């Protein structure tokens, strides 16, 4: 009975380590296979379309409204000090440094990450992955690596779009709706926004892209338990990816700024 209790404490911890180990191993294998011929550009391109292009609309909407609401919120704060001109700077800095990369990554996780997990999970439970292995085609090279590459490239692109439309949204609300001095708004934005802010945001986005694709592929790749298992894998993929993104965001921010 005592041994049983010990087991119950140890096994979850053990599982966490095993999970991290498996994810790391999978990441390592994908990088290994990325640089092995033959290169499957078709696969990568297809994933880029899926991860990137199909997420543009949702990212644009997220970005615009985030910028707008930031302008609205910070306006009420800054008005108390009579420095409404700083709204532009606040919106631009928040979006480029933080909200652009994070919200884009979360939206892509919800849209594409869940789809990756479901797709690979279905292939696993219908034994398509096993079939690939039988045909001597490495499933990591053909299924996982293209998704990671596509996310790695597409996330920064989506983020720069989100940054841009977010700042434009803030400008529309701040200058056109709330009537903040346009010159002060734009000049303060340009004055306080550094190139490093944008670049660091994009680096973050690339890291988030890798995290969400690796985690989602891992969850899908090792699915077990039929249709129910696929559903569980999809949910776990989204949850674990999102949490990992937010945790790594803090770490990255503390390193960068």
């Amino acid at each position, binding site marked *: 009975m005592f041994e049983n209790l010990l087991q119950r404490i140890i096994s979850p911890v053990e599982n966490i380590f095993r999970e991290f180990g498996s994810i790391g191993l999978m990441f390592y294998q994908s990088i290994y296979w990325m640089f092995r011929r033959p290169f499957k550009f078709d696969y990568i391109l297809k994933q880029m379309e899926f991860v990137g292009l199909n997420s543009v609309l949702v990212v644009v909407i997220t970005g615009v409204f985030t910028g707008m609401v930031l302008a609205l919120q910070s306006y009420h704060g800054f008005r108390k000090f009579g420095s409404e001109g700083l709204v532009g700077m606040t919106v631009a800095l928040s979006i480029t440094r933080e909200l652009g990369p994070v919200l884009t990554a979360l939206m892509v996780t919800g849209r594409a990450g869940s789809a990756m997990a479901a797709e690979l999970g279905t292939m696993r439970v219908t034994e398509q992955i096993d079939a690939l292995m039988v045909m001597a085609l490495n499933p990591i090279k053909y299924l996982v690596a293209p998704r990671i590459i596509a996310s790695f490239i597409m996330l920064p692109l*989506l983020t720069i779009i989100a*940054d841009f439309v977010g700042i434009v949204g803030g400008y529309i609300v701040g200058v056109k709706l709330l009537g903040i001095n346009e010159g002060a708004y734009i000049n303060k934005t340009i004055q306080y*926004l550094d190139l490093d802010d944008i670049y660091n945001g994009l680096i973050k986005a690339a890291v988030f892209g890798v995290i969400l694709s690796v985690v989602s592929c891992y969850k899908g790749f090792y699915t077990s338990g039929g249709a129910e298992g696929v559903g569980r894998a999809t949910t776990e993929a989204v949850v674990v990816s999102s949490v990992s993104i937010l945790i790594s965001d803090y770490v990255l921010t503390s390193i960068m700024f």
Partner: protein
Amino acid sequence: MHRQQNISTEMKVGILVVVGIIILFYMSFRVGKFGVFREGGYDLVVFFDNASGLDPKTPVQIAGVEIGKVKSIQLEGYRAKVNLLIKDKIKIPLDSKIAVKAQGVLGDKYIEVKPGGDKKYFDHGGTIKDVITTPDFDQIFATVNRAAKNFGDTLDEFSGIIGPKEKENIKKSLDNIQTVSNDFKEVIRVNKENITLVVKNASVISGKLGSIVNDVEQGKGTLGLLVKDETLYNDAKETVAALKTISTDIEQGKGSLGKLAKDDALYNDARDTVKNIKDITAGIQKGEGSFGKFTKDEGMYNEAQKTMKKIQKGADGLTEMTPITILGTIIGTFF
């Protein structure tokens, strides 16, 4: 069919990538002030006692216009050595001054250069030595704090001086002032009619005075004629001219008076006379002769003093004849 699909995917992804890169470049150009095309410039060095609030990229301004940036900040012998990167086309005179300033109370720090009038300019690596130290907020607050403390001490001392006795005195003084003012009020109330009469008379007098002055102005009456009549003035002028000719005649020894003034013999006579007088006075001094006795005698002196007093009294009486003096003043004001 399959190929068609492929091209379409490539196109789509390609468009997305291009759009993303365009936006990235656009934002980089807008945001990057020194940006991708790093503007050249030359270095200047400044030593500050306190460089708090300064960072690399802190703007350097002349008259509010950005002319460069802080490049780096180092510690050199407990002073902050700040390297500035100034734009090439901006030339800074050698006698320029430099100061760290803040934009408003909450604003960011910046470096202000106050250009001098020198015709020589700083070269690359030059050091601006004329640093104006502006007090930072800690110092200002310390000063304000001290002032407030002094003020408080003064108040304490003041309240120490005013004991209960002094308070009583002050109260009494105030009461006295009140009674006095009440009395004054009473006096005014009783004599109200008299006072109004006095004021009325004064107003009548000043009105009359006004009309007199008016008359004088217009040359009416004797005084008016005196002031306004030209003939009088002309007479005076002629008299002065005549006097002048007489005096020139005297100068030249013309006429009897002239001879009197110019003749040497007369001068010698006068000198002898003065000498004689001197001898006589010396005699008097010694008490010789009858006049000498007269001056030295005490009783005589007292008598003379009494006489002088009487004369004084007579003169006082004369001064009391003020209307004449007033007339004199009025005439005086008109000339």
